[in-house]
């Protein structure tokens, strides 16, 4: 059995168990979409907890939401949408065989993501200084509601989990940059870029819902 993938004159990147490059590309995208379904339901659990507790303690959410700085939340949203735009641009340049364009766009996306994390870091430290910690370590008296830590537990869980996904996204894109520099991608084979783009857009969509639900309760 010679090297299976070189058989039948298929391009190098096509695996032997796929008939052609299109089938492999379609399969990878469908697989990624199925994985995104699990991500949506994974965050769905947290949104369910948010909605249940908001239906029970609406006034707590009103008071607690004033603690969150809407300005920096809006800036973060704009940063993340910008990174979504540049990731789309990077996929476009990969499709047009512009490897340099791909790498620069990826760098911009990574830097925007880092800006997002930095802003998150300052928001967290600002809260820690005031004694707003998750769960039983909550010692802040600014909110006159005996269950005030529930809102911040949910806030930390949602934004924390989202932050971890942003960090994973940064890691993936750094990996893409390294492989792009080695010339692994071309107009014919750019599936990893497309897949990481899909993942990053979903991280952005989740923040699009997080921002109004947490910051803009009035």
């Amino acid at each position: 059995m010679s090297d299976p993938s070189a058989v039948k004159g298929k391009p190098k990147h096509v695996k032997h168990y796929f008939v052609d490059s299109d089938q492999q590309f379609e399969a990878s995208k469908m697989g990624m979409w199925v994985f995104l379904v699990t991500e949506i339901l994974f965050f769905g659990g947290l949104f369910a907890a948010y909605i249940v507790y908001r239906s029970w303690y609406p006034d707590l959410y009103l008071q607690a939401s004033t603690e969150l700085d809407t300005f920096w939340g809006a800036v973060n949203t704009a940063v993340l949408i910008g990174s979504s735009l540049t990731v789309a641009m990077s996929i476009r340049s990969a499709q047009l065989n512009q490897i340099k364009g791909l790498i620069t766009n990826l760098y911009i996306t990574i830097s925007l993501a880092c800006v997002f994390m930095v802003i998150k870091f300052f928001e967290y430290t600002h809260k820690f200084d005031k004694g707003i910690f998750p769960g039983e370590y909550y010692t802040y008296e600014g909110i006159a509601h005996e269950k005030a830590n529930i809102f911040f537990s949910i806030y930390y869980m949602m934004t924390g989990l989202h932050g971890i996904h942003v960090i994973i996204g940064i890691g993936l894109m750094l990996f893409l940059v390294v492989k792009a520099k080695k010339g692994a991608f071309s107009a014919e084979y750019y599936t990893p870029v497309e897949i990481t783009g899909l993942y990053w857009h979903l991280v952005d969509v989740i923040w699009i819902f997080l921002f109004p639900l947490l910051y803009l309760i009035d």
Partner: protein
Amino acid sequence: MSGHHISSAKFLWAVGSSLFVLTFLTVAVTWFHIPGPWNIIVAIGIAVAKAMIVVAFFMNLWWDSKFNSMLFVMSIIFFLLLIGITLLDTLYRVDPVPSF
């Protein structure tokens, strides 16, 4: 029928700027007070609009095979299921009140 749609740079910028406008709108809406349940409905409406734009054009579900769009819709349905039926319990609880 292969899913290699390439959208033009101008188009991507247009989508990006529309998202920025909607973000500004989301924040602007909170400046003047909208009564009762309407503020939540408006906020979620704008967020859903932004999400639809990102999913349809950035994640190019618009030009993709129908099955991927169906997967996305399925996940939203099951998410709403989880919330809907759980609220069926949490909103309609009637706890007894002890008299002494």
